[in-house]
């Protein structure tokens, strides 16, 4: 405590009452007794209630202002000395009354406006009209849980010097950290309940949509994971089956990526999930359209239409069939197996068209591997890894064919677009010693994944 503060406190504390002679005090006692004898009726309840204060100066201190801790007048009890606060002659307020008052208070203008208006225009007795029962539990000057500037246990370092020096009172910090030290309990009411109530009311509805969106995001993530897993399974199946037509899988997989975009459009999700079942049932392998049947393709696309994600995401109220007519058609075209006599260039063009149309329409950043046998996923030529693995798998048998030879043999394998070996040519020692048939038989079963080129040849050497 600074010297001036102490002196100010001493001056205030020692400020006496105006001296009056004892006769005056006795005369006052007599006057009071006379009034008491005459007095009748009941005291108005407002006088027994806490004094109603306007909130003009209750805005609380700024953050840098020192908090008053050191000054307690003579006979002051510590704020934590008495745990139970006497309630005085106060009435208990029912919940209904409190709710009514809260409702009325929230409909009032903000404190600053009301205060400005109230101080100038309100009649002197206007504040008395506030129900006393409500003021009992929620005094006007301090109603809500935390007074805006009351000393808090969380502010141990604040000092109460003469100015705001920003110095941290380490003693106060140490005292606050001491579990045995008496802590200043947070006040149970505050000064600006209106503001707090409005802030709470404003925050309450804001939290709910946040929770809703997070749950929707979780659902979307889950659906996306399921879709990706299904797509990976389809890719694996296609890799194993090779020539098996992927159209059914394509139709079945097309809706799966549609699920994630529905995270923000909850009503669209069930539709997108339910539609593929019927579509798949209708699009059996026998009924699949071929590349030269555009009308049938369009019809199949329309059947798949509702599951396409783009319309569900962009326009939840839009007509489902109209925007999805082209994209699913292209998807079905691309997913259809290449006919045996189809030109490779036509297939490539068709796939590029389909991929371009799908991407433009769906505006989806979804990865292409998730869509299974999407046209874009078929490579132009087999990868080196696939070729090496195909050759290596049968190299042992081939080496067995030439184990008795001393010279090397050269083999040229030609794969077709379906990934199977189309032709094998053997030159070198094996060809001259009649072992070429054995080598051809060894590599006849080699295979790679389908690719878009008509054929792909690779040559290698078989050493004994």
């Amino acid at each position, binding site marked *: 405590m600074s010297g001036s503060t102490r002196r100010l406190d001493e001056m205030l504390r020692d400020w006496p*009452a*105006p001296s009056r002679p004892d006769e005056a005090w006795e005369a*006052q*006692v007599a006057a*009071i007794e006379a009034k008491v004898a005459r007095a009748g009726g009941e005291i108005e309840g407002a006088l027994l209630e806490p004094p109603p204060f306007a909130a003009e100066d209750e805005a609380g201190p700024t953050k840098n202002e020192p908090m008053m801790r050191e000054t307690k007048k*003579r006979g*002051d009890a510590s704020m934590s000395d008495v745990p139970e606060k006497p309630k005085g002659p106060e009435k208990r307020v029912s919940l209904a009354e409190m709710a009514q008052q809260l409702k009325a208070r929230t409909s009032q203008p903000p404190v600053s406006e009301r205060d400005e208006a109230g101080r100038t225009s309100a009649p002197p007795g206007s504040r008395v009209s506030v129900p006393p029962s409500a003021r009992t539990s929620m*005094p006007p000057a301090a109603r809500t849980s935390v007074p805006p500037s009351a*000393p808090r246990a969380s502010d141990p370092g604040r000092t109460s010097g003469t100015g705001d020096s920003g110095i941290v009172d380490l003693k106060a910090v140490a005292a606050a950290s001491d579990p045995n030290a008496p802590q200043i309990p947070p006040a149970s009411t505050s000064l600006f309940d209106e503001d707090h109530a409005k802030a709470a009311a404003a925050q309450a509805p804001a939290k709910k949509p946040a929770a809703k969106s997070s749950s929707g995001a979780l659902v979307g993530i889950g659906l996306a994971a399921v879709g990706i897993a299904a797509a990976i399974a389809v890719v694996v199946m296609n890799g194993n089956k090779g020539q098996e037509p992927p159209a059914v899988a394509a139709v079945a997989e097309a809706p799966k990526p549609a699920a994630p975009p529905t995270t923000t459009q909850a009503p669209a999700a069930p539709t997108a999930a339910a539609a593929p079942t019927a579509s798949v049932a209708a699009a059996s392998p026998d009924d699949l359209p071929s590349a030269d049947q555009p009308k049938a393709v369009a019809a199949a696309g329309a059947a798949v239409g509702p599951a396409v994600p783009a319309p569900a995401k962009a326009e939840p109220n839009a007509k489902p069939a109209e925007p999805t007519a082209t994209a699913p058609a292209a998807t079905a075209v691309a997913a259809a197996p290449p006919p045996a006599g189809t030109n490779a260039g036509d297939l490539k063009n068709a796939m590029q068209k389909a991929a371009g149309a799908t991407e433009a329409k769906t505006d989806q950043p979804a990865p292409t591997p998730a869509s299974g046998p999407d046209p874009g996923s078929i490579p132009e030529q087999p990868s080196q890894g696939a070729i090496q693995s195909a050759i290596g798998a049968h190299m042992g048998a081939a080496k067995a064919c030439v184990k008795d030879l001393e010279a090397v043999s050269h083999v040229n394998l030609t794969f077709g677009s379906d990934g199977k070996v189309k032709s094998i040519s053997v030159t070198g020692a094996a060809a001259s010693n009649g072992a070429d048939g054995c080598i051809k038989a060894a590599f006849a079963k080699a295979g790679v994944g389908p690719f878009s080129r008509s054929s792909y040849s690779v040559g290698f050497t078989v050493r004994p």
Partner: protein
Amino acid sequence: MPPPTDRDLVQRAVGGDQEAFAALVRRHQKRIFRLAVHLVRNGAEAEDVTQETFVRAYQALARFDGRSEPFTWFYRIAVNLSLNSIRARKSSRTSSPPVDDPRIEAFFTEIRPSVGANPDGAAESRQLARAMCDGIDALSDSLRTTLILVCIDGLGHEEAATVLGCPEGTVAWRVHEARRKLREYLADRGFGDSSGGDA
């Protein structure tokens, strides 16, 4: 035999013992009067408030449930009556301070009786007392009432909280804020640290 407590006197007064209530009045009227003087800043009004406080308290004796001390009950009634009195005359009050402020007279009568010997010191002390009164008057009702209850009347924070019907933390903040504003007010008028020592 120890003197009866306030609660005993209240109990007896409730039973119709006028002497018991007179004893309560004698015991607390000076404190109530001092509070009223500092709140209403007028001796006559303070006297009226004091008398009215005890009359109203007597009327409400039956409603005293004994959960708080009787004097805090008197204080609450006195504060309410004082605030009502202030509000009633607020429209007709002039901005200039009253010439015969009972607080200043009490300050010089009781605390600085010797300053009259030194005219310069008397003038300075009177200016300081005037500045302090003006600074207190410039506070809001809540800050001023809390400051008077705690710093002048010497109530503890708990008692002041009971009187004012607010948490102790609110009382603490109000006292702090009132003192801060009062210090600033005095500093603006040249009664800072150096001159405050004289106070």
